């Protein structure tokens, strides 16, 4: 049934650290590789070696520029660039599930994973229309809807060593920017990360209640902000570190001698 379960036992999902993601696309391709060979129809590519190549991907990495605004006397800082991976957020109030006419789309009771049962899917595309995040792509070769499965065929897979029972994208992420776990359990590592780092929802106003969370980038360019400006005096925390050892011309070698004497075993 395309009803949503009233509650799921667990809320498995991803936490993506925008402070650490270097935008390398490793997660994109490893997802493509795993899901081409595993769950359901392979992720096909059209015009693969031609003029207009395109294909099905379940995870894609965007990038955004953020231009901080000047505030008060503080001039605007340099623009920032943020890499932004995005796959299905396994929403609690998943509109993609309720719109599905065939029941192919569903949210699992045991872990909250939103899946497409490909043998029921008619490829109407409505679920993709209803997803604000662009997390679903209709595979042109198979004619069925594809989406992130949270690697449901990995995370419980007894044919994999225990430590590998995580999504392919998480396992491969070189920067460690992707975390996987139960966001329904406040004591889980992922929940704690979200709490510590102020994890956020995408498009909260859409009311989808995403399970996946994003950790915002940490503040940037603080060394530019710090008061090393001449005259900024009292807010200048770092300046004392750079007080010259001597003001006298040629005094440096004198200082050197004194400093060398102070080294352990320095005094002759």
């Amino acid at each position, binding site marked *: 049934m395309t009803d949503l379960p009233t509650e799921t036992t667990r809320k498995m999902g991803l936490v993506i650290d925008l402070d650490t993601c270097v935008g390398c696309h490793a997660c994109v391709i490893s997802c493509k590789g795993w899901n081409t060979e595993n769950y359901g129809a392979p992720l096909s590519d059209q015009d693969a070696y031609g003029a207009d190549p395109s294909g099905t991907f379940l995870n894609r990495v965007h990038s955004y520029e953020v231009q901080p605004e000047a505030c008060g006397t503080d001039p605007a800082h340099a623009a920032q660039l943020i890499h932004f991976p995005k796959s299905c957020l396994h929403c609690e109030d998943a509109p993609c599930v*309720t719109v599905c006419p065939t029941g192919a789309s569903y949210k699992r009771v045991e872990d909250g994973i939103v899946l497409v049962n490909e043998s029921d899917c008619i490829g109407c595309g409505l679920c993709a229309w209803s997803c604000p995040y662009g997390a679903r*792509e209709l595979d042109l070769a198979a004619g069925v809807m594809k989406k992130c499965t949270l690697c449901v065929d990995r995370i419980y897979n007894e044919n994999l060593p225990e430590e590998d029972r995580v999504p392919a994208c998480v396992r491969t992420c070189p920067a460690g920017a992707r975390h996987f776990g139960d966001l329904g359990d406040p004591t889980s590592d992922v929940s704690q990360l979200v709490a510590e780092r102020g994890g956020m929802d995408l498009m909260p106003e859409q009311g989808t209640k995403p399970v996946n969370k994003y950790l915002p980038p940490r503040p940037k360019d603080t060394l530019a902000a710090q008061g090393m400006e001449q005259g900024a005096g009292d807010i200048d925390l770092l300046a004392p570190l750079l007080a010259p050892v001597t003001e006298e011309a040629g005094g440096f070698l004198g200082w050197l001698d004194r400093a060398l004497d102070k080294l352990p075993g320095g005094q002759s």
Partner: protein
Amino acid sequence: MHPAPPVIAFTTLSGLGFGLLFFLGLGLPAVTGWVAFIFYAIAYALAVGGLLASTLHLGRPERAWKAFSQWRSSWLSREGCCAVVALLTMGLYAIGAIFLETHWPFLGALGAALSIATVFTTSMIYAQLRTVPRWNMIPLTPALFLTLSLAGGALLAGQESKATGLLVLAGLTLLAYWHQGDRAFDTSGTTIASATGLGTRGQVRAFEPPHTGTNYLLREFVHQLGRKHAARLRVIGFVLAIVLPLLCLALPVGGLALKHALAGLAVLSHIIGVACTRWLFFAEAEHVVGLYYGKR
């Protein structure tokens, strides 16, 4: 949104078809025999043709029957169910009218209700989508579908006076829909800032897309339409769907042949006009996912 021909054909044609069935079910006109056959043939051709066209849009049309199962939650499923029940009910009613020269008023009323309900379910497929603010307008979006369907149905059913009123109504609804639709995205609260969660840090701008080529999402949801082009099409659509048919109806002409010709012209103009506004309905609709690609 990508103005896919099957979907435009579907909503346009089946809207008209069910609109016509609505009037036939109410016995307007209360035709029988051959005349009834022609009316019903037209209505079914439009309604069923539209439905069939819509299956062209499916990735796996051979499984379309599975869509009947989720009427409890899915407007698309409801639409399918409703359409089938409406067609069956009206089919029975049509058998009476064509072969038995009888009208079963209760069945007709039921069929009429189901027919118009089908149009409503169609409209709700779009109106329910928060992701497309221009569609996510209740009651305007359903009102638009319903008034156009009824106006078209009345035109086809030769209900001149009703058609006149309904066309005026539909025209006003269309104007209201456009007016409010133009503001819908901005008032939806969804922006690139909320999409990325980065809005508190400064001005957000989409930089490199995830890939240099295209993808399903861009093809399906991101359709860039020039403002001028849209405005021109709105005028054309409005004139053809509403103004010209109204003129045709209002022209005080004598001869029956001329009258029929004018009625035919009104219908034709209306269909093209509706198709045109339907094209705009899709082409102008912006899906919030475009924000992620720096496009809307």
